[in-house]
């Protein structure tokens, strides 16, 4: 077993060696380096063939037509194109957008931008388990609503939204439904042929592909119309100009092809490891699972270790790469907005650790992690005045704190 152990698969994943091989073949003089837009010679034709095959692989994973896939630089750009592109195109129909408080910043910041352009945005509060229910969506719809944007799988807590039911509501009212699926490819089955989703964002690097490449699904039936955000050359049917990055696209295609073929075995293995990890931790004192226990993708475990500050725990766990909702790990000094939207007290948000298990995680690594976490939490609690107070029966909410 090699240290440190990577347990942050929700942040990014290593590129699968099978993907690396395909990408390498698209770079040098003796490889497939041509510009897919070159129509006048074989180098271009060959490159186009490779990008179109990759498009087919992406479409196959989510069961859509390859002509519905638009290449982008990643899920952030896909979210921007979907939200700003569809809202700006449909401005004449209404100015109301519905999203939630626990979306990725790419969605939230795009919505914030639209607010400055005269759009009204409703930010739904999730349940304390992190779910946005179909009822919440239908209750928020007005005559002005043109777009609903919700994530499939939350990146911090791994909780799954019922996009099938929400899509039925939006389709009935002819409201555009955008789903950020950056986290869910390869982790949850997605069948766009049966889902009433108009726009869906994808990322390669969360699914064992390279960084810097993503895609947007834009439905043809019914046809969703977008205003392009990047102009120049009219690539991707005018929706996203720019020379196609053959090696990146081929990498994403191969990663998604593998995701389809390996999904069942990946999920089975990863789920077993997640259960093992939680079984190893859940009997500790004052430990809380964040997010719904059942409606959850296999690899995610977000846990608060009460009375221990998350960043100090990360420092103690230096042999394990994880992330925290603690303010101290961010530049903003605010604890995770996702955990706070779930109604978690600040101190529990500060005490949270996100474990992300993935394709290359081993049982041995999980066992090592359990032992190290237990030992580190115990050591840090020995240092914690809050742990003393808890053990002495002091109600921390009744204490007058002297914050500086």
């Amino acid at each position, binding site marked *: 077993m090699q240290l440190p152990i990577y347990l942050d698969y929700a942040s990014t994943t290593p590129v699968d060696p099978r993907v690396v091989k395909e990408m390498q073949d698209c770079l040098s003089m003796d490889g497939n380096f041509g510009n897919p837009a070159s129509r006048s010679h074989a180098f271009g034709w060959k490159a186009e063939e490779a990008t179109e095959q990759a498009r087919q692989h992406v479409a196959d994973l989510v069961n859509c037509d390859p002509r519905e896939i638009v290449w982008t630089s990643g899920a952030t750009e896909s979210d921007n194109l979907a939200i700003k592109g569809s809202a700006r195109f449909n401005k004449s129909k209404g100015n109301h957008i519905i999203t939630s408080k626990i979306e990725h910043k790419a969605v939230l910041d795009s919505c914030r931008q639209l607010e400055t352009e005269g759009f009204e945005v409703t930010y739904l509060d999730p349940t304390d388990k992190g779910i946005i229910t179909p009822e919440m969506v239908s209750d928020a719809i007005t005559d002005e609503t043109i777009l609903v944007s919700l994530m499939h799988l939350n990146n911090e807590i791994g909780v799954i939204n019922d996009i099938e039911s929400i899509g039925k509501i939006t389709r009935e009212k002819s409201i555009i439904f955008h789903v950020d699926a950056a986290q869910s490819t390869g982790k949850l089955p997605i069948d766009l042929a049966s889902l009433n989703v108009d726009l869906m964002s994808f990322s390669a690097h969360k699914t064992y592909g390279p960084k810097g490449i993503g895609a947007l699904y834009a439905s043809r039936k019914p046809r969703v119309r977008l205003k392009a955000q990047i102009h120049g050359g009219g690539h991707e049917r005018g929706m996203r100009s720019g020379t196609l990055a053959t090696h990146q696209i081929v990498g994403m295609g191969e990663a998604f092809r593998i995701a389809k073929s390996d999904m069942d075995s990946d999920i089975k293995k990863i789920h077993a490891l997640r259960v093992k990890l939680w079984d190893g931790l859940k009997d500790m004192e004052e430990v809380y699972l964040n997010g719904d226990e059942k409606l959850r993708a296999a690899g995610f475990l977000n846990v608060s270790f009460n009375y221990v*500050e998350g960043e100090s725990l990360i420092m103690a766990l230096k042999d394990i790469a994880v992330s925290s909702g603690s303010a101290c790990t961010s530049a903003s000094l605010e604890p995770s907005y996702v955990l706070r939207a779930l109604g978690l007290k600040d*101190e529990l948000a500060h005490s949270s650790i996100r474990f992300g298990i993935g394709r290359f995680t081993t049982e041995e690594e999980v066992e090592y992690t359990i032992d190290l976490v237990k030992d580190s939490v115990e050591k840090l609690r020995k240092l914690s005045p809050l742990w003393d107070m808890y053990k002495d029966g002091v109600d921390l909410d009744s204490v007058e704190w*002297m914050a500086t």
Partner: protein
Amino acid sequence: MAYSKKVIDKFESTLNEPEKNSVGRWNPSDTDIGTGMVGAPACGDVMRLQIKCKPKNNSHVISDVKFKTYGCGSAIASSSELVDMLVGKTLEEAREIKNKDIANALDLPPIKIHCSVLAEDSIHKAIEDYESKL
């Protein structure tokens, strides 16, 4: 966040050898003990500093110190560093310790300066508490 080696070393030694690094607590109602607790759980850091003092000449000297800290790695390292500075000092000398001394000793990055401010506050509160018992 990349920490200085000093913060990491101090944090790890405090974590692994708490007794040696003055982690602990005394009964706060003892007359020779001054207790200062600063910070708030909601902000992500709470420090509790205790000083044991004895009269010497016309002043009082800090003979021993104990602390516990809930907070990020640099908060824990800052309080542990402060402890090293306090033992043997008179209360007047202890009051002169500034957050900058702690921040410099640990090479704290700018975003972590508040940890050293908290440590400075804790000593003032502990002295105040001790003096209120005289």
